């Protein structure tokens, strides 16, 4: 079984985010790391591939600047190889352009299963994997909280508003996983060393037969017209509990006529 995992390399979310004042896109300078949301997909792929003889896990990613540090993390966890689409023309790509690029890259690995996170930590559009499924002509099951394969059938517990649904679908297919589905492994020292010699194919959009007008800012066909400060919600009274904390909450609720 060929499993492809789509991952995003993002600025460290612990560092405060910023928007570029001229382009209004997220500032992506500095070191990028593997999006934590994607570590669940990588772990899921490794577990599913481990159950089926002769399986291989390929990481697929896109970045404007040839960044690979996040990919090395996924390889150190145990993925066999990575495909990175890196091209200056990709800067400012929206979700649909990203889906076009990743679909073209994923095709190279002839996937039986494509795994992605439900949404990225920094952009959280949350539509890219389904756009990709449509471009690949595959069914998709989003918001998976449990995933297994049985021969050529994918079995998923999919979150719903009020519980979950058991969903089945033939492979090849796209599945998106939520955080918490599996416990991502930490790369071992051996894994980290092995990752250094694992192959990363770096492709340009031309290699994938895509045109610069389809991707990046040109392909996004949307623009930010303004960025403004949100109306701040002032903070009220902050008090240290001296044994009277509960009392104060009751008084507050009384004043609002909630009790």
């Amino acid at each position, binding site marked *: 079984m060929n499993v492809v995992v789509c991952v995003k390399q993002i600025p460290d979310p612990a560092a*405060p*985010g910023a*928007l570029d004042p001229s382009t209004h896109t997220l500032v992506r300078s500095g070191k990028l790391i593997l999006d934590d949301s994607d570590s669940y997909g990588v772990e899921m792929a490794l577990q599913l591939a481990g159950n089926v003889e002769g399986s291989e896990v390929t990481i697929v990613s896109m970045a404007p600047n040839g960044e690979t540090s996040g990919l090395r993390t996924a390889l150190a966890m145990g993925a066999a190889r990575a495909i990175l689409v890196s091209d200056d023309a990709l800067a400012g790509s*929206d*979700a*649909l352009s990203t889906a076009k690029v990743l679909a073209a890259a994923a095709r190279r690995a002839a996937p039986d299963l494509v795994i992605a996170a*439900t*949404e990225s930590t920094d952009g959280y*559009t*949350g*539509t890219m*994997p*389904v*756009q*990709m499924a*449509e471009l690949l002509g595959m*069914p*998709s099951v*989003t*918001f998976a909280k449990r995933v297994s394969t049985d021969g050529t059938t994918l079995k998923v517990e*999919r*979150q*719903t*508003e*009020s*519980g979950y*649904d*058991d*969903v089945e*679908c*033939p492979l090849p297919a796209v599945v998106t996983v*939520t*955080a*918490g589905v599996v416990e991502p492994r930490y790369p071992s020292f051996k894994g980290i060393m092995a990752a250094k010699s694992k192959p990363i194919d770096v492709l340009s959009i031309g290699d994938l037969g895509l045109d610069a007008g389809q991707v990046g800012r040109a392909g*996004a*066909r*949307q*623009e*930010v*017209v303004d*960025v403004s*400060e*949100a109306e701040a919600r002032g*903070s*009220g*009274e*902050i*008090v*240290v509990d001296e044994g009277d*904390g*509960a*009392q*104060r*909450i*009751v008084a*507050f*609720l009384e004043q*609002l006529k*909630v*009790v």
Partner: protein
Amino acid sequence: MDRIWVLAETAESGPTPVTLELLTAARAHASTVEAVAWGPDTASIAGTVGEYGATKVYDVGDLAGALPGAPVAAAIAALVASGDAPDAIFVPASYDGRDIAGRLSAKLDRPVLTNITGFAQGDGQLTTEHPVFGGTLVVTARFTGDGPGIFVVRAKSFTAERSGGGPAEVVAVAPGDVGATGAAKIVERHVEAASGPKLDEAAVVVSGGRGLGAPEHYALVEELARLLHGAPGASRAIVDAGWVPYSHQVGQTGKTVKPTVYVACGISGATQHLVGMKGSKHIVAINKDQEAPIFSVSDLGIVGDVHKVLPALIEQLKSRG
């Protein structure tokens, strides 16, 4: 604008609240509002969606257990291809809504704007507002290419208001052939038993986070919620840890709540949590860390231990009877 389509989702009790919110929002920006729905009995919602302004419901029909993403997007794409295109399509930011928006975007080769919490009009064009960085900044955006634009809107962004319209006309549309893309099927549904008001409709929400320390302490949150006739909620940290089901999650990837009072117990106030509850009328937070970001949005903040404050609070409310 002339015409906006709203993707209408249905629950057992009729159209979902976000559907009615989107119909209301659409009315403010277009002279004609129409709905697209699916399910075994779409005719039953014609009255309600009509009351909120839709004059027509395109009915994709019963999907026989198929996930709606592919067949509903195919039906809409076929209508658009036949020359019957609206100026904009409003989609709720729900599980199925996002699937349909994604499929439709790829089929029509049109981009999507997501996480929308507001609309405005300028030069006859619709602009959207969406919060970033935990709602500290608001980004205004618009499409620059050909329409129809696909707009994915967060629940609770608008207040649903009736227009007093009559029942919508129901027009059957075929999903068309979706081939392999429509092959995902629901084989069984599991609905969690719930008592008390719904999380996204309750006047009081009491949420717990990792600061509760252990899963059994979530009972304090449930008890307080019960005493205040509210609903219990949760941060993602304790949902991911398996303490409570996902349906309790408040935040960017969970539910958006706007109760009269939101009580956050042992929740740090990460940006992804704040976007789901910042619209609450009043916010009370209990956290032992004075620097916790949740205090920056609280009307009343108690710097203290949930294991002391919550039992005392429950005791006092009980003794009031």
